[in-house]
């Protein structure tokens, strides 16, 4: 069964929006904290991307299936409790299976709770849409987020430590750019990455509008 028969046109549009038109980090400007903080090595970025995608998916299922039962005034707290419960699962999973990564990520795992992507998607999408669409949206956003995180981490790890996934990839006389592994490097790189993505999307949307 090909992707075309499995997902109809609207499904594919929702999926694609997650990593293009409504890309959480570049376009909407959400989830920047973790994009900056845990992108110093690729290993951390993969763990974080997987964690966020899992929580996003689980939240999408729960919130969209309960959407008719959630009272308007209590919706924010409902999102938070749902998200926090799944983050605890992620935290315990990392503690048990990858203690080294869990230690490196530290408080940032807990901070998946306050990752605006999940909250933002819940408020903007899951609370009003069907389970099917929400799950597809979660996958799209999860892909968009994880891919960006890993891409930024790859650049920072190579420049900052001279390694990729812990393997030495730079020549022997390579001088590490220590600043890339620290906060300022994260800011500069994300700034440039957003710049590049804006330049590309503006060009393509300009063509669509025909100017």
């Amino acid at each position, binding site marked *: 069964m090909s992707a075309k028969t499995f997902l109809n046109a609207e499904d594919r549009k929702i999926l694609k929006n997650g990593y293009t038109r409504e890309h959480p980090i570049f376009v909407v*400007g959400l989830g920047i904290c973790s994009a900056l903080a845990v992108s110093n090595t690729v290993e951390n970025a993969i763990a974080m991307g997987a964690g966020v995608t899992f929580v996003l998916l689980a939240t999408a299922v729960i919130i969209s299936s309960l959407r008719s039962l959630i009272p308007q005034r209590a919706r924010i707290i409902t999102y*938070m409790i749902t998200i926090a419960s799944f983050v*605890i699962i992620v935290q315990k999973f990392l503690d048990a299976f990858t203690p080294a990564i869990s230690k490196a990520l530290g*408080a940032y795992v807990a901070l998946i709770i306050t990752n605006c992507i999940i*909250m933002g998607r819940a408020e903007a999408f899951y609370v009003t849409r069907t389970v099917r669409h929400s799950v597809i949206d979660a996958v799209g956003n999860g892909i968009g987020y994880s891919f960006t995180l890993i891409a930024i981490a790859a650049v920072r790890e190579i420049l900052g430590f001279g390694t990729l996934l812990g393997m030495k990839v730079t020549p022997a006389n390579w001088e590490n750019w220590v600043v890339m592994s620290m906060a300022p*490097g*994260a*800011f500069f790189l994300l700034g440039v990455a*957003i710049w590049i993505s804006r330049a590309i999307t503006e060009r393509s949307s300009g063509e669509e509008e025909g100017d």
Partner: protein
Amino acid sequence: MGHLITIFIAAILTHNIALTYLLGMCPFVSLSRTRKTAFGMSMAVIFVVTLTAAINWPIYHKLLVPANSQLIYYIVFIIVIAASVQLVEMIMERFFPPLQAAFGIFLPLITVNCTVLAVSVFMVLREYSYVATVVFAFGSAVGWMVAIMIVAAINEKLALIGNVPKGLRGTAIIMIIAGIIALAFLGFGGMVDVK
């Protein structure tokens, strides 16, 4: 006393929550266009961060630890934070409607301002005493304010010059400015030492 001053200075300068730990970035990006909104948000952050840390400490140490249920502390903290934010929102709605109008969607999102939860989580991880927690929370929030106010002031001046490349406008230029400020703040490194 000296210990507390160290924690306070570290939270503002050497271990600035925005520029070193890269936390609280969503409101940082969206509200640093003008000093006025940045200041309003900072005030809300200072109030909420200090208040929630002060409430969360006794809950964690007097309730969760004796009951041996540290497992659920994320949920407990986030509920306390959400409730406090609701309170701040109601007060603002009643007394400062212009500020409320300026914030729009971002006041509810103060709940997802990572700074608020991060301070409470750091307090647990670093095993601070009650007084140290309050000082650390207040210092962190003031540090966040220092960072966003500097960036907002630079942003205002940039808007006057107005020749930022098109793709860089908005989020990207704020990241670059914050990067330069973070680089400058590295200069404070070694001034005080905390674990």
